[in-house]
């Protein structure tokens, strides 16, 4: 761990080195330990440590950006000089938003030393136990087990000094039994609370079904989407519709529709970087505190997220959703949430006459027709047919092609219980999501090969 003092001191020294009119610097230090395994063997074990520092300097309204993977003074000096040199060549920007000013941040307690202290031997021991359990059940296991740490810091010449540290532990478990397979994943800040046995049990429950997979006819089905499946769709909604850039370019389905009803009134979608049940990050890469931003409010298009540049363009304040300075995607929501409902998954299944229970989607793509939020993707492990209120048989891989606004306009139920959905291998982003019961979802293809 670098620690708050050392990281912010390095950034403050770097700011002093520049002769620019203004400067901002963000740093991300990361540690990841990753084990990947398949068929009872560990085929990858790695530890990755690094730091990335990005400097933005402003001189005569000209901006220069440079980054380096070091905290060493010489490397940082080179980085500042490169940014200043770039600024000299940059054309002046007419609408340059001011740097965010100093602000107060709520301290978080997301750094759990036990997650960092866990030894490779202990993690391998956990995997050995899972391999045994799986073997005992007659199934094979593949997956990954990750532990890690992140430190984010932002400082600027307007007085901003922000720091947040966190740990993460997560696992993905794919179990295979003949033609059947199951999947479960989990993430926690504290490795001791990552319940690998429960995950294995969930994955095995899908792969040890007594019936062989069936191939249902293509068409429209009721679907019960578990949080990971909802997460795939929400991530795409976030990138194609909920950022100010897509609103400005009018590619977002929210463009021209703010205030209008766009989906079922049961749906409220928001972004909340301070939600302790997610992998929160209290500020963005400009150092602006994260604001809870409602995107869909009881079915109505409510808004998008902003950084300072797009905020200035729309006459609004930043909502704290800036990405690193060298990204050109514009502001994006990285901590999406879907408000809980009142029902349970068991009740959803009982209420379903004929439908599909889907734990996760594979390879979703939301670029087909973003104005209609038309998406495609496939089922993967653990998808089941529901008939007359009962889960009856696993189903083979199916492809959906569906406009999300249409699908989200007929919500039959939202679960009270929500789950944290995140990839522990990635530094940023998580979602807190319920299970969603939709009345109609179109399946257009199947994966067949003889």
């Amino acid at each position, binding site marked *: 761990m670098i620690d708050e003092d050392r990281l912010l001191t390095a950034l403050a020294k770097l700011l002093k080195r520049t002769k620019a009119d203004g400067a901002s610097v963000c740093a991300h230090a990361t540690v990841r330990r990753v084990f990947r395994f398949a068929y009872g063997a560990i*085929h990858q074990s790695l530890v990755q440590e690094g730091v990335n520092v990005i400097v933005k300097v402003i001189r005569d309204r000209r901006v220069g*950006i440079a980054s*380096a993977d070091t905290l060493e003074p010489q490397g940082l000096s080179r980085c500042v000089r*490169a940014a200043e040199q770039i600024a000299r060549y940059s054309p002046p920007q007419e609408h340059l938003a001011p740097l965010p000013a100093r602000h107060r941040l709520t301290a978080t307690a997301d750094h759990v030393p036990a997650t960092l202290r866990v030894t490779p031997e202990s993690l391998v021991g956990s995997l050995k136990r899972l391999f045994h359990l799986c073997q005992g059940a007659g199934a094979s296991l593949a997956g990954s087990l990750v532990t890690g740490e992140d430190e984010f810091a932002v400082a600027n010449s307007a007085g901003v000094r922000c720091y947040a540290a966190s740990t993460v532990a997560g696992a993905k478990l794919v179990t295979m039994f003949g033609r059947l397979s199951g999947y479960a994943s989990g993430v926690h800040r504290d490795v001791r609370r990552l319940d690998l046995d429960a995950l294995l049990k969930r994955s095995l429950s899908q792969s040890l079904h007594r019936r062989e997979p069936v191939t249902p006819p293509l068409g429209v089905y009721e679907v019960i989407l578990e949080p990971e499946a909802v997460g795939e769709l929400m991530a795409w909604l976030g990138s194609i519709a909920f950022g100010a850039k897509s609103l400005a*370019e009018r*590619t977002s389905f929210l463009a021209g529709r703010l205030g209008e009803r766009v989906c079922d009134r049961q749906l409220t979608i928001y972004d909340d970087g301070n939600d302790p049940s997610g992998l929160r990050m209290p500020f963005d890469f400009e150092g602006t505190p994260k604001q809870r931003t409602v995107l869909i409010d009881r079915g109505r298009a409510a808004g998008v997220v902003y950084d300072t540049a797009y905020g200035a363009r729309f006459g609004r304040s930043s909502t704290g959703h800036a990405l690193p300075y060298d990204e050109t995607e514009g502001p994006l929501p990285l901590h999406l949430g879907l408000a809980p409902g009142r029902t349970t998954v068991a009740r959803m299944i009982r209420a379903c006459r004929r439908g599909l229970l889907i734990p996760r989607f594979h390879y979703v793509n939301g670029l087909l027709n*973003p104005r209609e939020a038309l998406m495609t993707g496939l089922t993967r492990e653990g998808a089941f047919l529901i008939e007359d209120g009962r889960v009856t048989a696993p189903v083979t891989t199916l492809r959906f092609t569906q406009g999300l606004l249409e699908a989200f306009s007929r919500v039959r139920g939202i679960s009270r219980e929500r789950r944290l959905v995140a990839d522990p291998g990635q530094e940023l982003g998580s979602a807190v999501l319920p299970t969603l019961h939709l009345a109609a979802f179109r399946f257009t293809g199947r*994966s067949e090969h003889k």
Partner: protein
Amino acid sequence: MSDPSAPRDLVAGLTRQLKRRGVDYADVRHEHLLHEHLVAEDGRVTSISLSESAGVGVRVLHRGSWGFAATPHLARAALARTAGQALALARAAATVNRSPRPLAPVAPARARHASRCAIDPFDVPLAKKLDYLLWANTTLLGPDAVQRATAHMDFYKRRKLFCSTEGSVIDQLLIESGAGLEVVVQSGDEVQVRSYPNSHHGALAQGGFEYVKQLDLVGGASTAREEALQLLRAKPPRAGETTLILDPSQVVMQLHESCGHPAELDRALGQELSYAGGSFLTPEGLGRVRYGSPQVTIVADATIPGGVGSFGFDDEGVPAQRVDLVREGYFVGYLSSRESASRIGLSASGGAMRAEGWDVPPLVRMTNVNLEPGTATLEELCRGVRHGYLLATNKSWSIDDRRLNFQFTTEIGWEIVDGRRGAVVKNPLYTGITPVFWGRCTGVGRREDWRLWGIPNCAKGEPMQSMHVGHGASYARFDGVTAAPAT
């Protein structure tokens, strides 16, 4: 930005140290990467950034198990600590792994390799690059319908030093240049996008600034803008089975998803099951499975000049080579590593191990996966088509976890009626099953229309590694394909 020279003594010393510690095998890789990224939007430069990354990755094989650790610190103590971490991880994994992991043999090499580059893009004055970028960008502007016009350039300079306990010492310098344009137009509720020369980050090649000049961004900008405006008035394609002719820009994505990925041997052996899935091309089918029609020959060629999947040696010291993946319709080869090749009884690695950077271990990656050219002109491919479509420039992509069921949309299409190209169609979508689709390939375009493309963002692995891979293709014709409008 800095002194990119590798700490040769430190790297070689660390390798010797690991050998003395009795590991089965180890390699140490130092990398230094410079990346310049320039963006202009709506007639003004919006982003200029330069990133520098350097460090050392240590990979150890101990009692049949791998361990990998990396550090940006080049001090002797930091490197020794990193090597210790890699060894500790390998030792921990070895308490589980029972079977050894032999490596296919490779002769130790002491070599230098540099990609071709006439004009080092990092020597070209920034002002000159920006002038050209803005010229191309402003050419996209004009009509009221234009919502956003973007132009970008990317330049990479990567130096690698590889040392192994088997005695290899390999220096490589790889320079890449690329550029692209995108215009978003809108009329009422209709929004369309057109890119040049390709979508998803444009075009990228091993080479210098001369490559960007050859792209003719300004000429391409006018065409892209006009085609985007045509799309606002265009009709969608009819739904149903039809004949498709894919422009090389779309064949690239078809090759990438439905041939390149399933031919990765680590994936076929189950090592990607927790992320992107497996492969229908299992080792039992090697040499026996019919992948496509006899017109279809696909190679993985790491030796081709200009390809972003080209190199002198891969990241485990195996010389670059050309490997047949599909020969006249039959699946005959894999992209492979020393370990995966050995596991299925191949005598040598296919030389496809590459890492995104110093801080991650190499994985089996596509090199330049190319559809070998045929002899037909575009007109000859269209001949005899009563009704079909010519589709260009990928817009969306999706394929299942065994790489069978795929669905693509493209930015633009043209109706083909009685063998002639007709009106523009918007939002075309097509779908199929990989071996069925390639089995219906009834023609491949000639070498004169064959072109090599670079994709800078091929995702694989945990932690996810984004790799630069190449694909070469000409036009290709497919009969009996399911097409539909993406609405």
